[in-house]
């Protein structure tokens, strides 16, 4: 028996759980396929139509377009984060988890560490691969960007951060709602439905509210020049980070207070 805090051993336990179920492995595979596959489709399509659509050349961003697959992969990482928690509630294994580690905050921290570490690796690899592949597809026909440009490098790295933070938000929703279906509905609403609702509002409201939406924050983070009325890339990272932290603190509070 050790008198030291046991977060390290709990993290080891959560890592065994994360890698030993098909849903995590599938989620990671889907994240790669969506980021890289959709990125390839978008960039190939742009190359094909480049000469016949000169109007699209204005404001063209070879970075954002090559990272377009993250718009789809964001749902995969949200589901990975949510299921890592909700699968414990649906199977009942949360009882075993919490009797093994009765200081529940340690469980929340351990799961967060495992998720963030896994998603950072997966997301960064995915965005760098899709960026490099996209530039290779563009080369010769469409203007390309290079990682030697610090702004381009930032946009690609932040693309990975965006996916990772959305995974964290998915996990926090998992702790708060405990049910996979509820989590996925709420998560999808935040990403997809919110922009549609905002679009129906007067334009001054759109500009004020729109820039706080996760999808707009993602656009700022992944582009060389952020869209009009949006936060700067650094500002967007900060706002999204605050969302993740607030939701995670709320999740940990609920976890320690509620009966399991």
């Amino acid at each position: 028996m050790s008198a030291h805090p046991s977060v390290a051993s709990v993290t080891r336990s959560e890592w065994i759980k994360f890698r030993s179920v098909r849903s995590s492995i599938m989620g990671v595979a889907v994240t790669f396929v969506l980021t890289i596959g959709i990125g390839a489709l978008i960039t190939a399509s742009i190359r094909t139509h480049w000469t016949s659509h000169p109007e699209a050349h204005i404001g063209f961003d070879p970075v954002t377009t090559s990272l377009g697959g993250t718009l789809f992969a964001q749902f995969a990482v949200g589901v990975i984060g949510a299921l890592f928690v909700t699968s414990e509630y649906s199977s009942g294994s949360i009882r075993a988890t919490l009797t093994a580690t009765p200081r529940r905050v340690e469980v929340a921290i351990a799961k967060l560490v495992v998720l963030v570490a896994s998603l950072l690796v997966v997301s960064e690899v995915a965005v760098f691969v899709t960026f490099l592949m996209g530039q290779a597809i563009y080369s010769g026909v469409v203007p390309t960007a290079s990682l030697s440009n610090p702004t381009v490098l930032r946009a690609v790295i932040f693309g990975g951060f965006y996916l990772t933070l959305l995974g964290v938000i998915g996990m926090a929703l998992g702790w708060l709602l405990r049910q996979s279906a509820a989590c996925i509905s709420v998560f999808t609403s935040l990403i997809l439905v919110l922009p549609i609702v905002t679009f129906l509002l007067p334009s001054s409201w759109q500009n004020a509210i729109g820039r706080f939406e996760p999808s707009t924050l993602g656009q700022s983070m992944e582009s060389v020049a952020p869209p009009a009325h949006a936060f700067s890339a650094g500002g967007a990272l900060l706002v999204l980070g605050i969302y993740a932290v607030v939701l995670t603190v709320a999740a940990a509070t609920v976890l320690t207070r509620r009966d399991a």
Partner: protein
Amino acid sequence: MIALEHLTKRYRKTVAVDDLDLVVQPGVVTGFLGPNGSGKSTTMRVIMGLDRPTRGRATVNGRPYHDLRDPLREVGALLEAKAVNPGRSARNHLRALAASNKIPFARVDEVLEFVGLASVATKRVGDFSLGMGQRLGIAAALLGDPGVLLFDEPVNGLDPEGIRWIRDLFRSLAAEGRTVFVSSHLMSEMAVTADQIIVIGKGHLITQGSVGDLTAAAKGSVVVRAKDRERLEGALRAAGATVEVANDDALRVGGLAAEAVGQLAFDQGVVLFELTPERASLEEVYMALTAGAVEYGSGAS
């Protein structure tokens, strides 16, 4: 040792456990009996730190569960069968639990071997039968070689061979000096498994004691048939016994032993056709004790 001190657990308006005071001693198998919904599972969940008591407290070896370091090394519990992610293998499930409490992985294979699941250690738990799931739950409870063990309805889903195996397991665990606390809604099961019995109903303690104490406390009766029934009935009532007329002219006599009834009949010169002492079974004692505490009774009972 497990101790409950004025333990009360309320869920909104429902009182699941009401001011329960108990000590579960090591070295014996303690049966925890009560009808469905009597608060057995809630009590176990509070002991295991899963639910927070509304009032009072539960301690294991003198400390609240929450304060135990690496608790699996002190307490093991089977709370529900197959509470495992169906996609995970039995070995990975146990390894995850072992890692969190710094238990070496060699112990995982040891307990899998012990409960008879070694050959399916790498199979998905989702494909397990209920009985195999129950065995996996027992393996998880034994993982940290704990001195205190709790089992909630452990025989559910086990075949007769499994039931005998688990009874022997409880006895040997208790013989090693461990605290073994087993819940059941079946008295017949506990009668053959437990040394000590605690009966609760509607969250209240109804009675506790050894199996022998409980049956001894049960009031038996004597069934008697006589040629001159009225004469015997009068004499019995005069002797202070309770008498009711059962079917086919027999009398059911309470408060007198069979010997005393026979002697009385002889003194009165009444010819007896039958004199049968009836001892209440532990099952009947239990039914009588919990009659007022059954949450979903069958109406006509």
